[in-house]
């Protein structure tokens, strides 16, 4: 529970943070994002590019029309007495038609982009999730859950921003700049050169500003991180703060960090804010300079600048600096998207859990000849279908729950072994208990049976078959696990129990609940089995959650059970009530039990005492007590430390 809170909290912090400033290889990531988009939406993108071209051209022709309007229609008409608006109307209709085409193109391009961007995101999310489900447990051990979560939220979001907004805008801007530049050159070369000079100044100013604000943004991120860390710690320990009357000191320290963040946020935003006005106003200056020089040029009649051309040129001038402005605004979001994309691809590039198993689990039946045959029905007899490559034969071995560890060494990484030379024989139907202090390796052993982790050395056999040969899914299906941390999923109680076996009928679900004495409290819930639980079952007590997860194992009806502190949060009295159900659940199944409570352990067929990854004692309760070793010490609480 506590651990989960921390994870949730981490998620909160990560959520607030922004991507790290530096990314290596931005080009490669960009190419990869584009490649991903193009893979599925190449035709769409081509249409979009065409539409952008059409849209920009429509706009350009409209602006060019200004020149025609003034030079070819208005001025001649002003100077002559002939006021025939017919030709002008015709010209305007032509322009209008082009405009309409432009509008249509814009509409089409936007509509298509929705499909492209949302479709890409949908695909990415699905691929991410599918990948995530296939990753080995190790991945989840080594990555903060909050970080994984934030890939789905923040990082995907940055990509959305980039694909749906930045990219089209970039394209649009580039096409616009190019076509406007050409038009400007056509209209008047000297003015264009002046314009370009001003643009260079603008770019220079933006670069300076962006550099400055970038430096402060990094500082802001660092301060934000510090403050968030502090908040996280304090809010998490809020009750402790209260109990120790530490409020004032907490506020004091908070204010200090808050002030720092304010300073750096102010600095960072100051330069970022200034960038916009500078560009806009430099655009205006550009406009003014062009207007003045244009006026002079027009007046002196140099370079064939007519009034109409000047009008068109000035309008172009405006639409020339705007895209540059836009590009500089989009740059930030592209940088963020690249950082996000990097994390998304990092997850997608993780190696999935490998599964080279070929022995499968099937329903079986004993035929008249007394041999096992595969069966399509649910026969309650399971068999391992073992195909021998060497001679092409297939044989069936009944699943009985015979588990052997032969000299197993294991470490979470290759340097530090946490289990040493573990030998273990569990006969079908036996109850094997593990006891020992935290970190002795009890949970680790059970995690090897279901291949959450692969062993470094030794062998684990299940019904005589090396578990590496068994398909992971089938292996796990044959093992019912009740874990230390219970996890419930959003849904009804019924759905949560049915998680154990999806085709279980309502009756089977309820029978399983009754078997483990969960039926009582479920009936008392407002909607009984149809009560919806959310937020990992926060409304239920820890004990109730454990009962539900035991029921889940019961409904799965597996030949082997692994109970990892399954009843630790159920108080001793309730446990005694559950015990009957537990006993009937364990009956006939090989059961591995990890518990710290004597009552749970005592009647085991064999108790393994673990210390620092080794089995130091084994035997029945009575034998171990007799031995007066570690078990005896733990049990009586006599020995010190």
């Amino acid at each position, binding site marked *: 529970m506590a651990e989960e809170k921390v994870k949730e909290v981490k998620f909160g912090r990560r959520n607030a943070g922004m991507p790290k400033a530096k990314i290596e290889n931005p080009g490669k990531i960009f190419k990869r994002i584009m490649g991903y988009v193009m893979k599925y939406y190449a035709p769409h993108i081509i249409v979009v590019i065409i539409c952008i071209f059409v849209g920009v051209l429509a706009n350009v022709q409209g602006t060019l029309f200004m020149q025609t309007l003034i030079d070819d229609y208005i001025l001649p008409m002003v100077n002559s007495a002939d006021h025939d608006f017919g030709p002008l109307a015709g010209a305007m209709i032509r322009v209008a038609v082009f405009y309409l085409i432009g509008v249509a193109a814009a509409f089409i391009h936007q509509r298509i982009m*929705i499909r492209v961007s949302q479709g890409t995101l949908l695909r990415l999310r699905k691929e991410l999730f599918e990948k995530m489900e296939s990753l080995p447990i190790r991945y989840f051990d080594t990555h903060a859950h909050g970080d994984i979560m934030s890939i789905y939220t923040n990082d995907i979001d940055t990509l959305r921003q980039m694909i749906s907004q930045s990219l089209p805008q970039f394209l649009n801007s580039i096409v616009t700049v190019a076509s406007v530049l050409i038009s400007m050159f056509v209209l008047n070369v000297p003015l264009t050169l002046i314009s370009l000079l001003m643009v260079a100044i603008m770019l220079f100013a933006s670069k300076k500003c962006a550099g400055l604000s970038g430096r402060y943004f990094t500082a802001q991120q660092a301060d934000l991180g510090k403050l968030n860390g502090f908040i996280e*710690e304090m809010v998490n320990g809020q009750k402790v703060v209260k109990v*120790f009357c530490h409020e004032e000191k907490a506020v004091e320290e908070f204010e200090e960090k808050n002030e720092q963040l304010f300073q750096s946020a102010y600095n960072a935003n100051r330069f970022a804010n200034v960038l916009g006005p500078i560009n806009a106003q430099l655009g205006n*200056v550009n406009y003014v300079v062009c*207007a003045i020089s244009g006026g002079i040029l027009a007046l002196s009649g140099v370079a064939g600048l007519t009034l109409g051309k000047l009008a068109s040129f000035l309008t172009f001038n405006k639409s020339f600096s705007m895209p540059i402005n836009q590009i500089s605004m989009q740059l930030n979001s592209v940088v963020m998207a690249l950082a996000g994309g990097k994390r998304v691809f990092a997850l997608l590039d993780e190696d999935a859990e490998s599964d080279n198993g070929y022995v499968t689990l099937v329903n079986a039946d004993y035929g008249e000849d007394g041999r096992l045959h595969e069966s399509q029905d649910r026969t309650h007899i399971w068999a391992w279908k073992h195909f021998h490559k060497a001679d092409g034969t297939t044989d069936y071995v009944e699943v009985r729950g015979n588990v052997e560890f032969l000299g197993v060494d294991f470490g979470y990484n290759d340097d530090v072994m946490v289990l040493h030379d573990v030998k273990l024989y569990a006969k079908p139907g036996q109850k094997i208990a593990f006891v020992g202090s935290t970190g002795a390796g009890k949970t680790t052993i059970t995690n090897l049976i*279901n291949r959450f982790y692969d062993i470094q050395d030794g062998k684990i056999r299940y019904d005589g078959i090396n578990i590496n040969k068994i398909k992971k899914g089938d292996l796990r299906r044959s093992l019912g696990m009740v874990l230390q941390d219970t996890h419930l999923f959003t849904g009804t109680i019924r759905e949560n129990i049915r998680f154990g076996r999806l085709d279980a009928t309502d009756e089977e679900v309820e029978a399983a609940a009754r078997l483990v004495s969960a039926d009582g409290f479920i009936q008392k819930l407002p909607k009984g089995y149809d009560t919806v639980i959310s937020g990992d079952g926060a409304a239920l007590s820890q004990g109730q959650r454990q009962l539900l997860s035991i029921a889940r194992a019961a409904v799965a009806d597996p030949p082997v059970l692994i109970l990892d*502190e399954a009843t630790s949060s159920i108080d001793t009295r309730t446990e005694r009530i559950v015990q009957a159900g537990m006993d009937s659940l364990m009956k006939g199944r090989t059961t591995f039990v990890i518990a710290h409570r004597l*009552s749970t352990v*005592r009647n085991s067929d064999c108790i393994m005492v673990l210390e620092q990854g080794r089995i130091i004692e084994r035997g029945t309760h009575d034998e171990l007590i007799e031995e007066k070793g570690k078990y005896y010490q733990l049990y009586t609480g006599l020995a010190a430390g």
Partner: protein
Amino acid sequence: MKEFKKDSFLTPFCMILEVILEMVIPLLMASIIDDGVMKGDMGHILMVGGFMLVAALLGLLAGIMGGVFGARASAGLARNLRSAMFGNIQKFSFSNIDKYSTAGLITRLTTDVTNVQNAYQMILRMCMRAPMSIIVAMTMAFIISPRLALIYLGAVIFLGIFIFFLISRVMKYFQEVFERYDDLNASVQENVSGIRVVKAYVREDFEKDKFRKASENIYRMFVKAERMIVLNMPVMQFTVYAVILLISWFGARMIVYGDLTTGQMMSLLAYCMNILMSLMMLSMIFVMVSMSSASAKRITEVIEEESALKNPAIPVMDVTDGSVQFDHVWFSYNEDIEKSVLKDICLDIHSGETIGVIGGTGSSKSSLVNLISRLYDVTRGSVRVGNVDVRDYDMEVLRNQVAVVLQKNELFSGTILDNLRWGNEEASEEECRRAAEIACADEFIERMPDKYETHIEQGGTNVSGGQKQRLCIARALLKKPKILILDDSTSAVDTATDKKIREGLSRELPHMTRFIIAQRISSVENADRIIVMEDGRVKGFDTHENLLRNNELYRDVYESQNKGTGDFDEKK
């Protein structure tokens, strides 16, 4: 907020100035063309051009100032919001804390504040700018030609209505999208934290299917919402083009008939762009504001949350002794007496007694002791410490005298000494060592590389559960309290050490009243008296021997734990 009033005020002012200056430029343009180019007056061109340049530069200055003030105002707002929230959270009572999840509080302090900060900056800088630029541009247009300005007016009204309609529709969709997003995130989170369950039951495909449905839902909603949004652009363009054509047409006619000059027409066309850009800005602001309003609401919720516990007007500043009385105490977490978790509790505990509290999960043991240091207020009845109602004490005084070691305890990043000094800032190293010894923490501290200077990671992740508990006990001891409450605080400590701690406590601090909540009978059997709780009621309050004799419940637990030692000292 007040502190940055000046900045909040100056920002829009600068923005308005910038707008006006910007708007003057096209007007001057008209003059250059009509009076300069058309009339061939070079001097006029230069003079007006000079004005334009000055206007542009002043505009630049105003823009920069606006940006600077805006940054200051919004960063300041964020700082003050955080400060107000954090300050208020520190005033929260336990029941206030329970109401919000920690993750929720942290998101409010971080993400939500950032959202509001960005929105505020946007509002300051754009909210005045956009309408102003529409108004100024319209005015200018009217000055130049009232008849042609009517075209603008029509266009602005049309677009205004359209944008309003669009936004109200889109917002509805977006709200739905956000809800679906929550579903999706929940699904991911469940799978991340429950991955072992998913894998153990081989339910990967089942979960993938669930996720696929959730993400396809989002896809559909998003496409729907965005389809509405993209209408914006073409309609906007359509209007712009229509306005340009209309102005060109009517403008041309007017020029020909001498009612308008060419220069004026050009400046009208320049205004056209300005007006439409501003409208676009406005629509963006609307979206941003409505998105951040959810954040703002969440923030004010925290700021306005009133602490459920108030210090009395004339507080008692001294706790005379460690006696505790419960007088017909009823307690409910939600004030609803029907749902009381403590029912009619009457207890009389003498100063210096050691009291064990035992009972099943959910029997309200913790709730009972939490009332002593007034972490919650009773719903009915009263709790007295040192013969004074806890509600009459100054809270800090009370809590310094009643030390609680919570079930869910936390260490903070810093050295071990720093952590111990939470109990008493002035404690000397010797005192800290002493407390650690009593709590049996010194033995492992001494084994650590830096001993008392060892750095504890955030959340105490680099010490084991049992070590953490012992440090927490030592920390509480440094307060030198009159009452010490150990709420299942030695559950991760092995039986032998547990015993040593208890013995140390009674040897070193005999006059301190002690409450020991435990699952294990062995932890409480040596107490002077033991409270047996069940279902929110006291089912027995007596010595171990008497309870064994008279109390069936106690005997039950005792037997189930097999002579009091049947426990392998493991978990929580």
